[in-house]
Structures are given as C-alpha cells and as structure tokens.
C-alpha cells in the first residue's frame, strides 16, 4: 500500500503524524532515559578502557594504581553528569491536576509540546556528549596509566589532557540545563 491510498480514519498521514501523536510525557521520559543511559554507557566505556590498561601497567609498576584511580574517577564523573541531568529533568515532569481522558481546547498545547520536545533533546544532548567525553577520557586515561608506569613525570601532563576531555561532558550538561530551563509541563488549563 502506498501513500495516500489508505481510506480508514485510523490511518497515519506519515511519520510527522506518528511523531506528533506521541505524548509529550513520553518524549520527556525518553529524554531522561537517553540522557542517563548514554551517559552511563560513556562512563562505563571509559572505565573499561582505562581499567584494562591500568591493570596491565600496574604489574611492573604497582605505584601507579592509586594515582591512576583519578582517571577512573574522571570517567565516573561522566555518569554523575547524566544522573544530575536525569534528576533535574525528572523533577520537571508533572502530571495534570485533573486526570482526564482528553484535553480541552483551552489547554496550553504550545507549552505542552515545547516541554516534551525540549526535555527529549536536552536528554540527548547530555547523553551524546557524555558518550564522546567518556570514550575520550578513557583513551587518555589508558595512555596515562601506560605512560605513568614508565615515567611518573608524565602523569600530571596527561591528567590535564584528561581534564579537557572531561570538560566536553560539562559543555553538554550546561547546554542541556539551558535547553530544559523553559520546559514546564502545564498542569491546569489556561485561564
């Protein structure tokens, strides 16, 4: 069946129809899920890159273990950004005061949709930047462990590189907060 041939009133008019019919609450909660989930993926990826190198490098140079845990903590920070963002966003999801099966004409549809899309994209902003940040902190951290094992003066230098990689995640969370600032779900009909 191609476009335009559907005669039933239950047919969708294409993807735009499908997407606009999804509940803004759904969008908001997916935003939270992506924001937290992708951040944790990034953090886990980073810890695993760093950790596997750290374990190997510490065989010949046990002194590096406690110092290089900082790299792991940097990766962990990525997950914490995700959690912070998820909490901020989750607090913004408010259910209407009156539970009705349909919304009236005086409902603030603009604010309603704005809140949904805004939270969805702010969750994505945070999640995607945190994946990138987590992986890059992980690779830098893995090199840090290997480098530190050979020459301990390298540790601080690579740590600075790691801090910059970690800053990528902070950019994401700043933009995410600004994006979600104006998102407020209407809880009552307009006056």
């Amino acid at each position, binding site marked *: 069946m191609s476009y335009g041939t559907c005669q039933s009133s239950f047919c969708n008019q294409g993807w735009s129809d499908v997407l606009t019919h999804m509940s803004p609450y759904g969008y908001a909660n997916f935003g939270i899920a992506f924001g937290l989930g992708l951040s944790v993926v990034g953090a886990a990826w980073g810890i695993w890159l760093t950790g*596997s*190198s750290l374990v*190997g490098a510490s065989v010949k140079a046990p002194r590096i273990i406690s110092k290089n845990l900082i790299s792991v903590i940097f990766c962990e920070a990525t997950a914490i950004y995700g959690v912070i963002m998820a909490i901020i966003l989750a607090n913004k999801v408010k259910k209407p005061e009156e539970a009705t099966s349909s919304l009236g004409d005086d409902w603030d549809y603009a604010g309603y949709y704005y809140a949904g899309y805004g939270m969805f994209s702010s969750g994505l902003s945070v999640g995607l930047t945190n994946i990138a940040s987590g992986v890059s902190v992980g690779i830098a951290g*893995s090199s840090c*462990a*290997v480098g530190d*094992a050979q020459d301990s003066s390298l540790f601080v230098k690579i740590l600075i590189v790691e801090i910059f990689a970690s800053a990528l995640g902070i950019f994401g969370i700043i933009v995410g907060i600004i994006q979600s600032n104006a998102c407020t779900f209407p809880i009552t009909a307009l006056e």
Partner: protein
Amino acid sequence: MATFNILHGHVESLVRGMRSSFLADADYHHLTQCETLDDVRLNLSETDYEDALADMNALIPTGLQKAAVDKLVTEFQFLRTQAIDPLAKFLDFITYEYMIENVMLLLKGTLSGRDINELIAQCHPLGMFKESTMRSIPTFESTPRGYQDLYQTVLVDTPVGPYFSMFLQETAGRGEVSNVLEEVEIEIIKSSLIKYWIEDFAKYVDSLGGETATIMGELLKVRADTNAINITLNSFGTPLNEPAMRASDRKRLYPALGHLYPAGTAMLADVGDEDELGRVLELFPQYSSIWNIHAAGSEGKSIDDAFYERDVQMLELAFEGQMHFASFYAYVKLKEQEIRNLVWISECILQSQKDEINKFVPVFSFNSGWRASSKKR
C-alpha cells in the same frame, strides 16, 4: 582505537610495563666499568635480571645468555597465555621464525654428525616443538626423498609445515626435480622458509589493518630488505653467485615485499660483487647510508652493526604509538638486542678487550645517535 582495549588492553599494557625492564644508560655505563665478571653480576643484580641470575654460581657469558633468553621466554609465554586472537596468532607468528631456525639447526647439526641432545640444548626455546618431534627431525636423510618424508611425517603437523610444503612445491615445480634439491644447501632452505614466513606474516598483519598494519608492515618491509641485502652479500664467493644461479636460485630467495621489491630485488639479482651491490643500494637512500658504513669500514663497524642500529631505532619507534601489536614484536627483538649486548660486554671483560667494549647498540638509550641528532634540531 575505542575497541582495542576490549581484547588486548591488558596484554598491551603488560608489554609496555615490561619496557621498564630494559637496562638504562647508567646500567650500561656501570657494566662497561666492570673489571671482572663478578662485578658484572653484582651490577646486574640491581636490575631486572636479579632473579634470573640468582641461582648461578659463577657467571660466564654462555650462562648469562641462557639465563637471559630463558627470562625472555618466560615473559613471552606469560604474554602468550594472557593473549587472545588475533593477538595470540600474532605472537605465534613471532615464534615461527625461531621454529624455522631450530629445524634448520637440527638438520645442519646432524649433517655434521653432532649429538642430538647437544643440538636440542642449543635450540632457541621460543621455537620448541614437542620433545618427540624434536628428536625425530634429524632421523631423516638429507635428500629430496628425506625432506619429503620429513615434511609428511613430522612437520606437516607443526605451524611451520605450510612453509616447508611451499618450499617443496616450488622446487618440485621447477622441472629438474630431485637433482636440484640435493644440491640445495641448508642455508638456502632456511632463507626460503624465512622468506615465506615474512610474506605470510606480512599478509596476516595486513589483514589486521589499522595501526598494526602500518607500523608492523613497515618493520616487516625493512626486515625483508635486510634479508635480501644479506643474502646477496653472503652469496659472494659461493656457487649461488654464479651467473646462472643468480636469476634462478638467488632471486627466489628475496622476499616479495619491502622497499626494495620489485625494482630493487630485480637489480640485486644481477649483482655480481660488492661494488655492484653498492651501486644498486645507492639508489635507495635509506640503505645507501648503511652501505656506506660497510664500504668505509670505519670505526670497525660491520654492516650487521649498522643494521642492528637501524633496527633498534625502528623498534623503539614502534613503542611510541599505542593500541597496536607491533610493540610485542619490538619487545622480543629489543630484548634480543639487549641479550646480545650483555653477552658482548661479558665476553669483552672475560677476554680483557676493554677497548672493544663500547661496540654495542644500547636499547632505549638517550645517547643513541638518532636521538641526539633529533634533539639538536
């Protein structure tokens, strides 16, 4: 890069950690100041070789070499047990070279009628087969028939079997079947097997792709060129240098890769003496400088020393990148160089040749020529 550590992160950082076990400039300096072998031992006991030398009563160069090689092998086996494919296969490839050398050592040794136990003791422990396999290799005659049997009964099950079969096929396919093979000396068999090994290794490395292909491919190319030059150089004064043999036999020994292939090897095939070889190498900047050292004969440096120096430089560079396999190959080869240095130093002390003692190629030295010149720039 983001997924390399899934499989190999631990092993890679292990080998990088072991980089710290190389002797430093200061260690070499102390070693060269030693008057007796006991002093050498005292100095080594402060380095990574402490455990290896612990249960040795009197230090002699051969004992030192054996202990050092055993240490290297233990480390290598440790890495090998931690590794999984494709790194495991890569590490196996490194050992194939030693297997080929061991088979050839056994064949050559039995030709000159030496005792099998003595020969096995001399084999490189990295290339060991099962005890029974080792013992059965020398029982075959050194004839075409014998090699066929050797391959079919023993070597076919070993990792180096395919190279042997390629060698047999190539010689068999050349018409003068049996006759030629009898004249083929062990050295030529070895060169062919090594050639197949390099080509096979290069193919495998290429299939891995990424950093490994770039860095390891370069190392193997240079290795192939070194072999080609050495084969040519060593063939002077042997039947292999006869004009008839040059194109048919010597050319086949050149590996089909490297910077010299194909234009350079084609020219090498026509070379008849050292002057002509020098003229060919003149066309390749990276080798003309090495050749000049050989030709000038200055400072008593041989072409081997020049090659070693260049190899050490390249292998050290392999350690500069992360997340590739070439560092494993570099580790084994650099350790070998270090063992050569130790043996050289202890031999010099034993024979009181103190003025020769500095003729070694230090590994990861801050004073090595190429590092010093790059610092100036």
